[in-house]
């Protein structure tokens, strides 16, 4: 039956096969998946992943999609949380060829497509950068020239996910700036930000008041600080879209 308008098809669990595993940082891995009949996604959306134990116990978590809609295969990037129920399995036990139960794509609020325009301000804390990188990949793949800045807060340079790709994209593209805030440890001669994101940093990085859209993703406290800070430097609350990662994200 064809539903009118933008009605969505019923969401169901399906199996994806692990095609490739990429070590991003010591604690972060990207899972590249072959998902038959994947309906496609928009940058910023997520999938739910479900694990079932032999005794039937199930644990379910959401993971942001890292790949661009234009990419052939679906990628999710997983940070291993030592006391987590799901992420240690995904980041350590899973091997190429394994099947993974997932459903998606999910979400519509934290989504950016090139038609939405900009300028685009992306602010990510830790693995909160993942959906923002999907937006950057979408922007690059579609050839969009939307002026874009990514402000990425990480504890150390070693913990920056996708670093080579981000630096390459920023070098190749005049319209894209990538700025890092390293909160705990900085390499010698570091010229980037060396503290947590605060209003001063946002004042320097944000586009002049009233311009464009901002997407903020990370741990709850990070998101609250940045979202409040962006409003303080002139963004209207409606221009700031947020996605909070909870403490149970593992």
């Amino acid at each position, binding site marked *: 039956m064809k*539903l*009118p*308008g*933008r*009605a*969505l098809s019923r*969401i169901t669990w399906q199996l994806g096969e692990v095609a490739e595993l990429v070590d991003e940082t010591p604690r972060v891995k990207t899972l590249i998946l072959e998902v038959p009949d994947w309906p496609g996604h928009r940058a910023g959306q*997520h999938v*739910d992943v479900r694990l079932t134990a032999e005794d039937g116990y199930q644990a379910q978590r*959401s993971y942001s999609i890292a790949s661009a809609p234009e990419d052939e295969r679906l990628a999710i990037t997983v940070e291993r949380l030592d006391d987590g129920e799901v992420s240690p399995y995904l980041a350590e036990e899973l091997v190429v060829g394994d099947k993974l139960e997932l*459903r*998606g794509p*999910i*979400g*519509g*609020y*934290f989504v950016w497509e090139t038609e939405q325009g900009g300028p685009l301000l992306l602010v990510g804390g830790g693995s909160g950068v993942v959906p923002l990188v999907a937006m950057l990949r979408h922007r690059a793949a579609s050839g969009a020239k939307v002026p874009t800045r990514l402000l990425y807060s990480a504890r150390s340079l070693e913990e920056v996910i996708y670093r080579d790709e981000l630096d390459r994209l920023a070098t190749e593209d005049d319209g894209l700036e990538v700025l890092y805030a390293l909160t705990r440890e900085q390499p010698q001669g570091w010229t980037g930000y060396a503290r947590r994101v605060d209003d001063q940093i946002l004042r320097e990085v944000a586009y002049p008041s009233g311009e464009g859209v901002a997407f903020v993703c990370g*741990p*709850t*406290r990070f998101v*609250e600080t940045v979202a409040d800070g962006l409003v303080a430097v002139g963004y209207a609350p409606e221009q700031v*879209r*947020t*996605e*909070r*990662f*909870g*403490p*149970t994200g593992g």
Partner: protein
Amino acid sequence: MDEQDLKLDGNAAAGLFRELFAFELTTARGRCDNCGAVAEVGAVAVYANAPGSVLRCPQCESVLMRIVSNGGRYWLDVRGISWLEIRA
């Protein structure tokens, strides 16, 4: 960890909504019946650490919606919302 760390947002309930609704609910706008604030569902506070999910107004923190599911049944308490505008 305190209560603030447990606060998520409407994105965290998006999968649950997809089980129930034929249209994307996180981009629907709703009005808080307590304070009158209007927000997209994706922007409201969500607490998922209870036996169900609790949605709260980002302005006044009143409960907007409670959803509990178990064994293929869903219970929705939506009395905190005056209306929802869903884009079809």
